[in-house]
C-alpha cells in the first residue's frame, strides 16, 4: 500500500499544478500513436493549425486567444475518459474526440457537465435529434447520411435501379462500423439490393478471409466502413484480387491519402464519400503557409497540409471557431462558457459568403443548425482517387441523402434513448 500512496502523492503534486487560463480552451483528444495514428495525425494537425492561424492572423476569436489542450487517447476509450476528466475542468468549450467509442462514452458525461460535443461525421448518429441530445452535435453529416449517399451514388450510376444487385459492406467490427448497417438494411428493402455483411476485427490488419469471400462471391459493389490500418489493408487486398476499384466505395473515414497510396497505381478509381472539399486549392492555405508554416508553428511535421484528413480537422476547427463567434454575438461576451458555446453551435449558420470570406469557397455545403436538428442537412459528395496525379477528384456535387428513411431511424433511435434515460424534450 505504501507504494500506492507514494504514487498517489506524486500524482497529486503533478495534477495540482496545471494552471487555468482565461482563454478560449479547445481540448483536442487526438491520437498520434497506435494503429489509428495514420489517420489521427493529419486530423489533429489540421485542428491545431487552424487555431494557430486564428491566433496569429486575427489575434484570437473576438479578441480572445484560443488555447488548444491536446491529450493523447490512442483511440482508447479509457484514455479518452482520462483525457476528458483532466481537461474538462479547464474551461473546455467543445469536445471533438474523433472516435465513435469515446463519443458514446462522453455523451452522458458531457451532457451532465453541460459541455457540448461535436462529433463531425461520426459518433452516435441519432444525436442529430437535438430535441433529445441537447449537447451533442454531429453536423454537417452523419453515418446514416453517408450510407444513403453511397447508395444514391450507386443508383445514379445505374440509372436509378439497383434491384437485384449485390452489395457487400465490409466494416470495422465496432460501434463505428456497425452504425450504417441498419440504414443499409432499410434501404435494401426500399431499393431491392442484396446486402452482405463482412466484419473485420480491430485493428484490421488481417482481412484475407473477408477478401477471399468477396473474390468468390464477386459482389457488384463493396462499401467500406473502415478506419486506421484497416483502410490501406482493405484497398491493397481489393487490388490483389483485382476487384474493379470504381465499384469500391469507402465512407469519408476510409478516403484519405494514407489509405490509398500504399496500394500504388492499382488504387486508381477507388471512391470515397466526403462532406467537404479536397485538395489545398483554397485561399486559406496561403494564410496557413504564411502564418503557421513559415513561422514554424505547425502542430505536427507540417507534411500533412492539404490532405483529406487535415482538411477535415481544419474544417472541424473552423466550424468550432464560427460557433464561438456566433455565441459571442448572441451573448455579447467575448470570453464564453461551454453553455454559451452550445447556444452558438445551435445557432450556427454556414453560408457560402461566410465560407468565401474565410478563404474556403465551396469547401463544404451551406447549412444551418437548429434546436431540433443538430445534424445539418446531411449533404455529401463522392471523390475518386487518381494515383497518377496523387489526387482526390470530386466526381459529384454535394447531394442530399434519403432523409425520409434516415429521419425515421433517427427519431426511433433517439426516442428509445430518451425513454431509457428519462430525457425530456430539450427544445420547448
Amino acid at each position, binding site marked *: 500500500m505504501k507504494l500506492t500512496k507514494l*504514487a498517489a502523492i506524486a500524482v497529486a503534486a*503533478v495534477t495540482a499544478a496545471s494552471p487555468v487560463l482565461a482563454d478560449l480552451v479547445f481540448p483536442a483528444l487526438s491520437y498520434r500513436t497506435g494503429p489509428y495514428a495514420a489517420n489521427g495525425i493529419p486530423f489533429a494537425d489540421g485542428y491545431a493549425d487552424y487555431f494557430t492561424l486564428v491566433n496569429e492572423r486575427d489575434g484570437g476569436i473576438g479578441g480572445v486567444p484560443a488555447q488548444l489542450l491536446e491529450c493523447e487517447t490512442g483511440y482508447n*476509450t479509457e484514455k479518452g475518459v482520462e483525457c476528458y476528466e483532466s481537461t474538462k475542468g479547464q474551461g473546455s468549450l467543445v469536445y471533438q474526440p474523433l472516435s465513435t467509442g469515446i463519443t458514446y462514452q462522453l455523451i452522458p458525461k458531457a451532457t451532465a*457537465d453541460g459541455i457540448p460535443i461535436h462529433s463531425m461525421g461520426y459518433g452516435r448518429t441519432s444525436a442529430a435529434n437535438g430535441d433529445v441530445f441537447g449537447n451533442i452535435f454531429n453536423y454537417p453529416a452523419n453515418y446514416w447520411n453517408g450510407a444513403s449517399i453511397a447508395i444514391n451514388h450507386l443508383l445514379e450510376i445505374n440509372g436509378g435501379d439497383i434491384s437485384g444487385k449485390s452489395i457487400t459492406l465490409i466494416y470495422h467490427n465496432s*460501434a463505428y462500423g*456497425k452504425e450504417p448497417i441498419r440504414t443499409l438494411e432499410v434501404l435494401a428493402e426500399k431499393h431491392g439490393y442484396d446486402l452482405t455483411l463482412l466484419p473485420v476485427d*480491430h485493428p484490421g490488419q488481417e482481412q484475407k478471409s473477408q477478401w477471399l469471400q468477396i473474390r468468390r462471391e464477386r459482389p457488384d459493389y463493396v462499401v467500406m466502413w473502415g478506419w486506421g490500418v484497416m483502410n490501406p489493408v482493405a484497398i491493397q487486398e481489393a487490388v490483389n484480387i483485382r476487384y474493379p476499384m470504381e465499384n469500391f466505395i469507402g465512407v469519408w473515414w476510409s478516403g484519405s491519402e494514407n489509405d490509398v497510396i500504399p496500394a500504388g497505381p492499382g488504387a486508381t478509381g477507388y471512391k470515397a464519400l466526403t462532406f467537404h472539399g479536397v485538395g489545398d486549392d483554397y485561399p486559406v492555405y496561403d494564410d496557413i503557409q504564411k502564418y503557421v508554416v513559415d513561422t514554424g508553428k505547425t502542430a505536427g511535421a507540417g507534411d500533412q497540409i492539404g490532405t483529406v484528413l487535415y482538411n477535415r480537422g481544419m474544417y472541424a476547427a473552423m466550424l468550432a471557431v464560427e460557433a464561438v463567434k456566433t455565441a459571442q454575438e448572441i451573448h455579447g461576451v467575448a470570453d464564453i462558457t461551454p453553455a454559451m458555446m452550445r447556444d452558438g453551435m445551435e445557432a450556427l449558420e454556414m453560408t457560402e459568403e461566410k465560407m468565401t470570406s474565410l478563404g474556403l469557397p465551396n469547401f463544404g455545403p451551406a447549412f444551418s443548425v437548429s434546436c431540433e436538428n443538430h445534424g445539418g442537412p446531411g449533404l455529401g459528395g463522392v471523390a475518386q482517387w487518381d494515383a497518377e496525379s496523387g489526387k482526390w477528384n470530386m466526381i459529384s456535387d454535394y447531394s442530399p441523402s434519403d432523409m425520409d428513411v434516415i429521419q425515421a431511424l433517427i427519431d426511433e433511435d433517439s426516442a428509445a434513448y430518451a425513454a431509457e*434515460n428519462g430525457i425530456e424534450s430539450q427544445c420547448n
Partner: protein
Amino acid sequence: MFYRESGDFKTTYAKDTQTFPIKLDRMGYYVILAVALILVPIMLMKDVGGGANYWTNAIFLPFLIWAVASIGLNILVGYCGQLSLGSGGFMAVGAYASYKLMTWDVPFIGELNFVVVVILSGVITAGVGILFGLPSLRIKGFYLAVATLAAQFFLVWLFNKVPWFYNYSASGQISVPTRSVLGFQVTGATAAPEAKYLLCLVILIVVALVARNLTRGRIGRSWMAIRDMDIAAEIIGVAPLKTKLSAFGVSSFFIGVAGALFFAVYLGAAEVGEAFGIQKSFLLLFMVIIGGLGSIFGSIVGAAFMVLMPVLLKNIMVGHLNWATDIAAHFEFVIVGALIILFLILEPHGLAQLWRLLKDKLRLWPFPH
C-alpha cells in the same frame, strides 16, 4: 525497537494467525483503511482542489477495479499455477451479464439491486470460467494459456456476434442505466464521485478479505499443492478436478465482479472488442506478475503500478515538461516497459517480494547480524 514481534503477546489462536502479526503493520493497515474509507471520500465530497471527478474517474476507479480483477487472476495463476489468458473475455462476461441483468425486468421483483447484479455477474462468470477451466485437467502450462486464449477470442466474438447480448442496439454498444445503492446513485454520469469510489473500495476490501482467507485455508492450500506439484498433490489426496475447477470458479467470480464494475461504474458504455480485448488479458497478467505471484498485496500493488504509472508519467511529461503528446505517449511505453524489465530482473518475484524483503530487514534493523 519498533518493528518487532517480541513483546506483542498473542493469547488466542485467532490472534496468532492474523494477517498482520506485527503491531506496526497492523496500525499501518488500519490507518490506510481509515484514510481510504473516511478521509478520501470526505475529500472527494468536498471536492478539495477541484479534481474530485478526475481523481475518481481517472485514478481511483480504474485502480480499485483492476485490483479486484488482479486478485482474481492471482488466485488462478499465482496460487493454483494455472496460466490463463482469458481474463479479458471473463471480464466481458461480467460486464455483459451485468448489462443484461440491469436491463432485465425481473418478474415480481422488477429492478434488481445493483449489488445483487454485481454478485450475480460474478456467479455467471464463475460458471463460464469453470467451463473453460475444464481443459486444464488435461493440459498444463503454456498449452493451457493457449486454450484459455481461445476463451478470450470466443467470448469477444460471441458478444459481438449475438445481438441479444447488447439488446439489439444499432451500434453494438452497451450503455449502463442509472442505478443506486442505499439511495446513492453509483452508475451513470450524474453519480457522485465519492459514491462510486466507496462502492468499488468496499468491494475491493471484501474481495481481498475473502481471497486472503480462502488462500490460507484448506482450499488455498490445496491450490498451492496443485501448483507446486500436481502429482504429489494427488497422492496426498488433493482432487485435481475439484481443486482446479474451484480455482477457476473463484478466480472468474472476482474477475466477473471486476468486469461488471469496469463497465457499469467506471466506463458507463462499452463495446466488447475495444474494452475487453486481448490486451486486457495481458495487462492483467502483467499486473499479477509484477505485483507478485501468490500474494494478495502483490495483486493490489501490481494493479497500482500498471494503472497509475502511465497516468503519472503522462502528467509529468505533458503537464510539466510540456512535451508533445505523441512523444510522451511513446516514452510512456518505453519507460513502463523498461521499468517492468528492471523490476523483473531485480526481483523476479514481484513487488510483493520487495516489500517482504524490506520487512525482514526492518525486523533485524539496526542490527543486521
